[in-house]
Structures are given as structure tokens and as C-alpha cells.
């Protein structure tokens, strides 16, 4: 279980709080106005930002002293998810072994993951030779290989068109099913939140509200969600 225990995050004069928990197999869309702190929340869970007070716990263990690379987390950023000077295969390999000393078994797993996301035979390519959708698939393949119990998505598909984004969401669900991961996905689009299935945590005015079922939220939205969605 992921617990945000009276968590307070501070960046300059900006402050936000969260106090809720989520099951290990939850699918949570994180929605809210720009600048509300959605990415800040993910950065804290991933280990890039120390809480100013409160705790982040995974399966009961406080994550405060766990460095980013050792947290039970895979994170996909808005961009720069792949090192441009390395091949796709090397980029995936780094997810298995940071020193890239891969065993034949590692390589087999790597090829399998590439095939799984539809990038068969693209291992030797450089990221610059991939389309935006293919680059996202490669990043998801690495998430598949790492198989960490929490998958954080900080709008990695924002630059893709609606159809491609739909495909990526299908893939995210598949990857999450296979690895049994808890998913936290930042998005601006209610359709994406619905497509993810599961819950939505709404972020506004310095508070990350506890996740509620997405369908129920949109069917009967409170005032600030209505404002955000632009419904009257």
C-alpha cells in the first residue's frame, strides 16, 4: 500500500498537502489545473523532492532515506525519457543494470520486452530515429523490464495525438497488469482519466484530494472539478 501520511511538499512559496493511501493495484489519474502541483507530487514519490513534513510509505516502509534509484518506482517524464546518445537496447539495458553488463538472459528479456511493446528489431536504433509514439513505447518497455511496483506517468504522452495516446494508455494498462503495478498518471484530459479506468485524485489549491472513482467524480463533480472541466 502507498501511504501519503500528512505529507506536505514545499517549493519556494508553493505548498501542497496530501493525506491518503492507495492499494498496490490502484489506477489513479492525477488531475488539476496547471501549476497545481501534480508533477510535484510525482517528484516527491519518485525521490526528487524531500517532504517538508509528513511521510511517504510503501508497504509500511518510510521512503525518506531511500535514494531515487532504489525506490520501488519507475517514472516516465514529459520528455527526455531516453538517453539520445545510446541505442534503444542500451536505454532499456540501463533499466536492468546501470553498468550495462548484460547477461545473455538479460538480452533475451530485453528483446522480449521490445517485442511486447511492438518495437521488434528496433534495439540498435538511436532515439532520434524513433517517432514520438515509438519513443514512448521504448520507455514503457523499460518500465516493463524494471517491473517496479509503482509506475508514475508525468504526462509522457502529452505531445502525442489522441489516437496514439489511446494506444499508449492501452499499453500502460497492459504493462501495469503484467507487473501488477500501482499507476499514478498525471493528465489534463478527462478522457484519458476515464480510459485509464480506476480513480482520480484531484489537485487544487494546495491539496491533493483522496482518489475517488473517476466515473463517479465526473458524474457528480464538486465545484472545483466543475470549474476545471469548464462545465457550468
Amino acid at each position, binding site marked *: 500500500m502507498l501511504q501519503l501520511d500528512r505529507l506536505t511538499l514545499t517549493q519556494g512559496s508553493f505548498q501542497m498537502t496530501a493525506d491518503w493511501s492507495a492499494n498496490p493495484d490502484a489506477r489513479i489519474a492525477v488531475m488539476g489545473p496547471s501549476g497545481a502541483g501534480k508533477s510535484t507530487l510525482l*517528484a516527491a514519490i*519518485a*525521490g*526528487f*523532492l*524531500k517532504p517538508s513534513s509528513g511521510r511517504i510509505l510503501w508497504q509500511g516502509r518510510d*521512503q*525518506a*532515506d*531511500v*535514494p*531515487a*534509484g*532504489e*525506490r520501488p*518506482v*519507475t*517514472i516516465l*517524464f514529459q520528455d*527526455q*525519457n531516453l*538517453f539520445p*546518445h*545510446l541505442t534503444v537496447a*542500451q536505454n532499456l539495458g*540501463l*533499466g536492468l543494470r*546501470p*553498468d*550495462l553488463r548484460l547477461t545473455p538472459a538479460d538480452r533475451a528479456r530485453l528483446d522480449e520486452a521490445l517485442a511486447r511493446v511492438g518495437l521488434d528489431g528496433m534495439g540498435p536504433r538511436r532515439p532520434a530515429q524513433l517517432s514520438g509514439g515509438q519513443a514512448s513505447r521504448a520507455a514503457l518497455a523499460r518500465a516493463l523490464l*524494471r517491473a517496479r511496483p509503482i509506475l508514475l506517468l508525468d504526462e509522457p504522452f502529452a505531445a502525442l495525438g489522441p489516437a496514439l495516446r489511446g494506444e499508449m494508455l492501452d499499453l500502460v494498462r497492459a504493462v501495469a497488469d503484467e507487473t501488477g503495478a500501482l499507476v499514478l498518471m498525471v493528465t489534463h484530459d478527462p478522457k484519458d482519466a476515464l480510459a485509464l479506468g480506476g480513480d482520480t485524485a484531484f489537485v487544487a489549491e494546495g491539496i491533493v484530494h483522496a482518489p475517488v472513482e473517476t466515473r463517479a467524480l465526473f458524474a457528480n463533480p464538486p465545484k472545483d472539478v466543475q470549474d476545471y472541466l469548464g462545465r457550468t
Partner: protein
Amino acid sequence: MASRARPLNLIAPALAALLLALVLAPLAAVGWRGAGLSLGPADWAAVRFSITQALLSAVFSTALAIPVARALARRRFPGRTLLITLMGAPFLLPAVVAVLGLLAVFGRSGLLNQALIALGLPPISIYGLHGVVLAHVFLNLPLATRMILQGWLSIPSERIRLAQSLGFGPSETFRHLEGPMLREVLPGVVLVILVICLTSFAVVLTLGGGPSATTIELAIYQAVRFEFDLSRAAGLAGVQLAVGSLAALAAWLVTSPAGFGAGLGRELNLSAPEGWRRAGDIAALSAVALFLSLPLGAVLLRGLPGLSDLPAVVLPAAGRSVLVALASSSIATTAALTLALAAARRPQMLLGAAATLPLATSGLVLGTGLFLLIQPFATPMTLALPVTILVNVALSLPYLYRILLPEARAVHSDYGRLADSLAIQGWSRLRWLILPRLARPLGFGAGIAAALSMGDLGVIALFAGERQATLPLVVSQLTGAYRMEAAASAALILVTLSFALFWACDAGGRRAAA
């Protein structure tokens, strides 16, 4: 950031402290020995001459560079890119070679005097203030041109299009576009060249001298080598430090990061006026091309025949110079990378100070201090090469740091979190992230450091005997003895090695980055 304190986090501060000590200990020695010493009239004359020649050199270099930079900015002609590239070369050209080339053209039996005598006119002398300024202009005009050209290229193309659509002629373009740009760029250019000329030693050693044309640096050298008056040397070094650090501080505050690494490839659609302005541009470009190429051509012509019959001292000196250059370049590059990576993660006063402080000093100031520190324990001569390496490391560190820091910051901000989230730390991070991403600036910076170290004549002149001489010192000694053919041959070898070292490092970096 939630990361545990790793021992790696202590390496950079420790290194910074070591580098600070390397600079501060000699300065303390200078201060200790030179304190309370009153300067005589000859010393004040040296101070005045130092400042006068540096000011004149900076102003002339900058003023002459303006028309050249403008012509390069608004004209397109075959060989333009080549000319701009060649303008980057004098930065790496050993000063002793430039002096030798200028002697071949403007010297006692040089081309100019031969022509004057043939015309029945009295010959001119290159020695003294005007010779020193001439050599400094030769060395710094290209740097000034490139810096000012960068200013022209930084004028936003929208503003140029706006000017064209408003029907601006050349004078309106100057008033509204070029003038404001020059007001912003020129102070920095003047200050950078001022700093370079204040610490110039090799030029003054050959073309200056005597009571009327001695700089502080030359006076330090004479006090150590000929009078063996270390207290006076220390006092002079203190004055040089005060003057040099003021100028360096001003330059550091005024200038934006130097652009000698940039390709300057951006296209600019400045209108190219016809008529006398066209003739003026052609004249400026031809004059500067001739001024820069004649002396070097003369060295080439004089030096080539003698290559088969080199003085015995040349090759061993060349070997020593290459060793010094490789050692100081690799140490300085490693140190600068360590500091830049740590500073990119978290800015720290200590790191910035360690990487910037050497700018305030000069080779002879540090050299005098180290001489004072070493002398009670050992014969300074025996440590000539290690000391030269250390001083070259200190002096090239600020340039390397400035080249590497923005790139290290970019890598950190673009890929730091990704690498952290994948637990890519330590050697893996260096091997798979830092070195590939920074290969280009590392190669370029190492090349600059190697070439500068290869061609440097400064501290080695204070320390070296026959058996420690580096190639620039040998060239300078041959020039001083009027063995011009032998000097030219040695100079050719020096230039070739300097540029070969730069090219090898730079190309290596490019290949590793590809």
C-alpha cells in the same frame, strides 16, 4: 534530493581546496616576502608601461576589429568560413612564434625595412612600445573580431527584417541596430584583451626591454634571473597581482562566456551596401588577411629549409613540451570536469572560487611564489617542469571550467533525474551519461589546454636551465641570439605540435560524441 551522503560528494570540495591552495600559497609567499618593500622609480615605470601598452593594445585591437567583423557579418564570399576559422587560430598560436613572424616582416632586416631602404627611406625599429602593441594587436585582433562578429550574429533576425521593411539605410541600421550592439559588446572585448596583454610575457621579453619598455612581468623575470633579488620580485608580483586581479574582475563581470568554441555558422541576412562601403569592406578584409598571413608565411619560408639541420636542443625540448602539455591538459580537464559536475548538481562558493581565482594571477606571479616556496628546500631548476605543469593547470582551469559548466548543467537538468531514477551512479554514470554527453566540450577544452600549455612561455623562463628548456623557451632564446633561421625551424615544429595536439583532442571528442 533524497540521496545519501556518498564519499564522492567530498571529492570536489577537496579538489577545490587543493586548487585554492595551489594558487593561494604562492600568493601568500609573495605577500610575505614582498610586504613593506617600496618600489623604486624603475618599478613605477614598469607599472606605467604595463598599463599603457595593455590599454593601447586593447583599444587598437578592438577598434581595428570592428570594420573587419562588420565586413564578415554582411558579406558573403568564397573563403569566408575559412577566414573565420583561421581567426580562431591565433588564440592557440604560441606568442613566441607570432613575435618571430613579426620580426621577419617588421624587424631590422625584415620585408618592410628592405622595401623602405630600397625606396631610400630610413628603416624603422620594431623594438619598444609600438612593437609590443603591434604584436599584441596581431595576437588579439582575431579574438576581438570573433567576439564582435558574435555580437553581430546575436542581433535577432526579426529586428533585421523589421529594419529592412522600414527601409533603413546603412546609417539608420548603424544607429538603431549595430550601435547598441557594439555599446554592449565592446567593453567586454576591450577588457578581455586588456587582461591578456597585462599578463603577456613572451612578446615583451623579445620586443620590449630597457628602461622605457619593461612591463611588471618582465621586471619580475629580470629580478629573479639576473639580479636574484627575490624580495623585489615578490614586491613586483604583488603589484602585478593587484593590477591583474582588478582587470580580471572587471572583465569577468562584464563579459558573457567566451564564444571561441561556437561555430558562428548562423546565417544572417544583413543587407550588404554597395559603393564605397563595399570597397571599404574589401579593404578591411584584405588588410587583415595580409596582416595575419604575412608573418606566418615568413616563418614558414624561413623555417622550412632548416628543418633538416635543427640545433641539438630543439628535439629534446619538443619532447619536454609535449609531455608538459599532455600532463597539464589531462590534469586540468579532469579537475575542471570534477568541479563542473559538482557545481552543476549544487552551486557552491568554494567550487566557483577555486575555478575562477587563477584568472587574477599570472604565470610569473604564481611562478615567483612557487620559487619562493621551493627555494629553501630544493634547487628550483630541478622542479622546473612539475612547476610549469602545475601553473599551466591553474591558468587553464578557468577556461575549461567555463566551457564545461554550462554543458554539465544541461546534462544534469536534462538527464539527471532519469539517471537518478534508474540508479545510474558513480562509474556507470560517468561511462554511460557524462562522458558521452560531454565528449565534445571535453575534447575541445582539453585541446585548448594542451595547445596553450604547449606554447606557453612564462613560468618556465623563471625556472629552467639548459636541460629543462621547453620548446617556446628554445625558440625565444634562438630569437634573442638572432639565429632567425634556426628559430623559425623550431617555431614551425612548435606551431605544428600545438595545433596537432589541439586537433587530436578536439577530433577525439567529436568522434567519441558521434
